[in-house]
């Protein structure tokens, strides 16, 4: 795992988070518009606020290792996001941190383990199921695809490409779904026909990883 050519280092993780801050700033309107249709028009604002707060915090108190970075991200997101995405993504990074304990660099299996732990956390926290029209509809297929790719011997870039593609397909698949969790579920059938904002932000999260961790 020590080989820097095939592993994500502390710097790689920080780069991903920096890219995420840009991505959520750039997609703020899109995410907010999606949330306007079936929620309360704040998801883009929430995500931008959360990830820019993450940047500020990381700059002010640089954590020593990967686990500490994710712990700091989790705390910041929980504190600053406000909506349901706060505890959900917060839990994602909390569990990701635990999965990275003691690691100075992440190999292919570690990357998959990171996402597996994080996505498991989202599932446990939100108790949503596939088909409920939530971020899990992007995350779970992504996890499946990443696992399969890892088992098939892909490298990190290959794994993340598969994951990002599956997340995108999952995100699009939320359009015909009826929401059963979160605010959008209050809309019942009227939630059908709109893409889920949380699934969209999750897809962005994976796409950013796929772009950044192309080693």
């Amino acid at each position: 795992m020590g080989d820097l050519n095939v592993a994500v280092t502390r710097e790689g993780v920080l780069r991903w988070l920096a890219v995420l801050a840009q991505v959520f700033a750039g997609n703020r309107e899109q995410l907010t518009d999606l949330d306007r249709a079936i929620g309360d028009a704040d998801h883009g604002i929430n995500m931008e606020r959360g990830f820019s707060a993450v940047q500020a915090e990381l700059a002010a108190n640089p954590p020593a290792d990967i686990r500490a970075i994710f712990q700091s991200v989790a705390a910041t997101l929980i504190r600053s996001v406000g909506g349901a995405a706060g505890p959900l993504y917060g839990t994602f990074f909390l569990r990701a941190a635990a999965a990275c304990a003691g690691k100075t660099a992440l190999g292919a299996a570690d990357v998959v383990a990171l996402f597996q732990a994080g996505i498991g956390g989202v599932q446990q926290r939100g108790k949503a199921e596939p088909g409920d029209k939530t971020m899990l509809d992007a995350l779970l297929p992504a996890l499946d695809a990443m696992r399969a790719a890892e088992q098939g011997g892909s490298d990190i870039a290959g794994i993340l490409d598969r994951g990002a593609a599956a997340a995108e397909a999952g995100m699009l698949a939320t359009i015909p779904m009826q929401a059963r969790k979160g605010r959008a579920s209050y809309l019942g059938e009227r939630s059908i026909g709109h893409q889920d904002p949380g699934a969209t932000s999750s897809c962005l999260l994976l796409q950013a990883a796929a772009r950044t961790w192309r080693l």
Partner: protein
Amino acid sequence: MIGFVLVSHSAQLAEGLRELAEQAAHGSVAIAAAGGTGDPTNPIGTDAYRVLQAIEAVYSEDGVLVFMDLGSAVLSAETALELLAEDRRTRVRLCPAPLVEGTVAAVSQAAAGAGIDEILREAANALAAKAPQADATAEPPGAAEIVVAVPNRLGLHARPAAQLVRLARGYRARVTLENLTAHAGPADAGSISAVLGLGARQGHRLRIRAWGNDAGDALAALADFVASGCGEGDEAPPGAAAPSPAPAPPLAGRLTGIPASAGVAIGPLVRYRPSAVHLSARTVEDPEAERQRLLAAVAGARDETRGLDEWSLAHAGAGEAAIFGAQSLLLEDPPLISAVSHAILDGRVDAAFAWQQETRRLADRLAALDDPYLRARAADVTDLALRVLRRLTGVAGVLPELREPSILAAPDLAPAEVQDLDPARCLGLCLESGSPLAHSMIMARAKGIPAVVGLGPAISALADGTNVAIDGEQAAVWISPTAAEIEELEDRRERRVAALRQAAAERHRPAATRDGRRIRLVANISAVAEAAEAVERGAEGVGVLRTEFLFMGRANAPGEDEQLSAYRAIAASLAGRPLVVRTLDIGGDKGLPYIDFGAETNPFLGWRGIRVTLRRRDLFRTQLRAILRAGAGQQIRLLLPMITSLDELREAKSRVAEVEAELEAENLPCHRHMKIGVMIEAPAAAAVAEQLAREADFMSIGTNDLTQYVMAADRTNARVAALADPFQPAVLRTIRQVIGAARQAGTDVALCGELAADPVATPLLLGLGLEEFSVSVPLIPELKRAIAQWTLPEAEAIAGKAFGLDSCHAVRRLLSSHR
């Protein structure tokens, strides 16, 4: 000092509620508000750290209760718990009560010195106070009261107690009873367990008190009722001599029940009383869902008990019925149900464990009373407890070991128990309750074990070793049969065995009508080993492989490899004969520990069959991968259960296509373009059969479920089971329509329910043009012979006549007259 934390998206709301609650608290509890995000530009939202801080601020060893508004407030509160130190976490409870009402009710209770459990209970009920005619919850002073003596010779035993409870429940007033002589109570008069627990014997003085709306009327009525012996009069109650409620055992003679599985058997009786296994507590993720499971199981057991109740009323004296009546009251007993509910909600333990704990406690309490009649009620409680437990765990008891070939008598049997029976040792079954249409009896027929059900408690009153004979067709049980009776029954048995043997000898001749029309005769199987047996008995293939057996009785779903090897093994046993694999059909009455079905008030109209697999993509995908892979080079087709619309078929097809593409991408050999069929079980599927026939490669009519859904009658509910008869004109017309639609479209259609195997129905089905019958393995030879009896024109003529008839009885009569 108990602490309270109020979580809201709005800081103002949380703060305002805190103010409101302080008024009720009189400074005796600590309350902290955790509203909003604390971010002035985006104030609305929740923040787990604010919740955490609030918890820390009011924390004490006495515990903390957290009340929340919607959605992310709950997520944030849970996250806060995760961030809290472990030793503190266990003392913090998230309260699902409505924020405003729940908080105020809970704070008031806490200020009055209530413990956490009581507070939670009151908070959960807080909305009730808004109901328009809520009764006063507090006991107003000056309640009316009367003292009466109990005249009943045996005291307030089950029957009078049950009557009393029914009467008390008819009033809105709150009524309590206190046994002044034995210093027991006061007890809620609406609770059978509480009333029995008073231990009231003849001559004991009872104080009856009543509050509320119609207190005066209630008091007068109840006092009268008790004084007059609770409707018992002077006659001795049943079983007065013995503490057991069972009737005196008949020493000889004949009992009649309901026919469930044909055949004759003679042998010594062995009684089976399932006893409870010891359960240990399991922590549950979602206690509310667990509580719903409890309520569903209790309701199911109650309906069953009521069915017995009615049966006893019709077949025995009212005395027997009152025993079951008292049992079914116990199942609605508010203190019992709420004790179990709280054990689940507060302890986060599973329903089975909580139920077993509480019912044991109740049984112990009754067993400790010094009245022999009341002590006997402990056995009733144990009996009932078990009935619910068996529903909750699906786990069967341990059957007695049959040392010699015997006839088994039991209250009822679970399918898993019948599954375990060895037909060589268990010659026949006699059940107190049960239904011929229950799954357990389907299995008895499949195993060729004769059975009579609905015999009532008399059967269990016989001593072990009593010689009995049963005739499943006549629904009769002879107790200590005479030599002449035995001879006649032996004779009948031999004729039957000979007929079966002849059929077995002809097994490898393909099925055909007398005039030579070939009929496909295939097997329904649900175990790997059954495939070989099916071939052995002359099946031309498997019409339905029920894959549930792979999924049941385990903690996790079977993986792809495990499924693959099972499907491959079956295909290998069939040696090239066609195999239809039905995808997982779970839900309805069958649950799995690793699928969360949530709370369903109506599981048969809920999440089952294809509805589950389309949403649990993970499970479906794994199963499809295994089936498609097993299909490489084999004649395998796929069958989808519980289809109600074309959309579901299309969605399932696209999942299959995805899996196929996936397997190809992985270079794994698989069956390409596998044929996909649909089960016709719901009236909706029958209604659109003509559309389904165009897009499905084949159809299979499942008459068991179809009958229940068409007739809107549950075959396990004794009171309506008779309606769920496949010979009902409504069901037959539905079947005719489906067969017609399939033939029109040129789509294969098979029939795979019980009806297919019933030789009485054979000419009718042949006459409708059915060309494929799928039946359980042991029935194949007999059905083959039944098919060979008819020519098509004969069958068509009979079917024509049957469709002119207007009741299932007339249809049955017509068909029997042609046998």
